[in-house]
C-alpha cells in the first residue's frame, strides 16, 4: 500500500484515508497525463477521446475528495473556507477570520424544540 509506517501501527481510519489520498493522487496524475497526450496528438478523434477520459478522471477525483472531506474535519473546515470563493485566494483566510470576529455571539437562550420530552 506504499505506507511510510507499518500497517499494524495504523488505525483502520488512517488506512482508509491513505487509500483515498492515493486514489486522488492517481486520478490527478491521470488528468495530467491525459492533458499532455491530448495536447500532443495530431489526431483529432484521439484528442477528443483523451479529453473525455481526462474529464472523467476529474469526476473520480472529486468524488474521492468529497469522501475524504466527510471523514476529515480539518479538511472540511479548510475546503469550506477556500472553495467557491471569489476573493484573491491568499486573502480568503483573512477575510473569513474577519467575518467570524464580526459575527455576534449566539445570544438566544437555546430553548428550541421541546418535542422529545413527553409529558403525562
Amino acid at each position, binding site marked *: 500500500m506504499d505506507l511510510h509506517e507499518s500497517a499494524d501501527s495504523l488505525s483502520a481510519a488512517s488506512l482508509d484515508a491513505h487509500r483515498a489520498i492515493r486514489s486522488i493522487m492517481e486520478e490527478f496524475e491521470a488528468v495530467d497525463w491525459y492533458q499532455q497526450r491530448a495536447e500532443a496528438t495530431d489526431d483529432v478523434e484521439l484528442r477528443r477521446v483523451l479529453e473525455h477520459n481526462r474529464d472523467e478522471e476529474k469526476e473520480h477525483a472529486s468524488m474521492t475528495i468529497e469522501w475524504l472531506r466527510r471523514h476529515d474535519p480539518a479538511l472540511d473546515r479548510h475546503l469550506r473556507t477556500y472553495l467557491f470563493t471569489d476573493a484573491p485566494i491568499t486573502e480568503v483566510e483573512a477575510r473569513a477570520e474577519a467575518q467570524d470576529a464580526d459575527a*455576534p455571539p449566539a*445570544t*438566544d*437562550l*437555546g*430553548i*428550541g*424544540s*421541546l*418535542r422529545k*420530552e*413527553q*409529558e*403525562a
Partner: protein
Amino acid sequence: MNHLRRDMAPISTTAWAAIDDEIRRALPTFLSARRLVDFSGPHGWECSSVDLGRTEPVQQLANGVEVAERQSLPLYELRREFEIELREIDAIDRGAKAIDLEPAVDAARAIARVEDDLVFNGQSTAPASGITVASSAHALALELDASQIPAAAAAAVDALRERGVGGPYGVALGSDCHGAVMTRTDDGYPVLEHLRLVLDDGPIVAVPVIDGALVLCLRGGDFELVVGEDFSVGYRGHTDTTVRFVLEETMVFRANGPDAAVPLRFADSAAPTAP
C-alpha cells in the same frame, strides 16, 4: 453589539447568566406548542418571512406578460419587558442564592402563552391561523363527562386514520380537560392511563390557551412553528433602582396540513364534571 444591547446593561456577566438561567428554566414549563408541533429554526433575527411557494396574480395580462406576487408569511415580533431591582442584581454578584427574579419568570409565562395562543388559536387569516381554527372543519363533540375523553380521543384517531393521516399522535388538553384527565378514574381505571393507551404513549400536553382538547398527528410536516430569533433577553434601560429588560422572539406558525388534527369541543362551554 446587536439589537439586544446586552453590552450596554449596567450588570455583570454573572448577573446576566443568572437572569438567562432563570428564564431558561422557566420557559419549558410554560411552553406547550413546542412539545407537539414541528420546530423550524432559529433562522436568526434577520429572518422576516417564510416563503409559501405560491403566487397571487396582481395584474391583468398586458401584451402577454403576466405579473404575479410571490406569497410569504411575515414573522411576528413578540416582546415582553420586565424590571429587576438593582439591589437583587447586586446580590447576585455577592453570591446570594435567594434572588427575586419573579418578574423574569412572569415575562416568560406571558410570552410563552402568546406563542401558544398564536399556534393553537392564531390569527383570523389563513395561513397564519392556529390549529384549532385551521382544523375546525374536522371538530368532534366532547362529552361533559371527563371519563369520555379517551373515547373522544379514540374517535379522533380513527377519523385521522380514515383520512389517511398516520401516527404517531399526541393530544393537547385545555386546562379543564387536563385537570380531569389527571385526577379522574373510570371504574377505578385512571383516565390518564386509558388516554395513554389510545395515543400509544404519545405526548399528553396541557395547553391552557385552548378549550376542550385537540388530537393531532406528529408525523411531521403538518404543523410548523417557524422561529427567527429564539427567546432572547435584551437590555432596555435603567434607573437608580431598577434595570429594565426585554424577553423577545420572532416567530410564525404555519398550518400546512389542517387535516392532520381533530379539535374536540364540548357541546357547550361547560367544563368536565368534577369528580
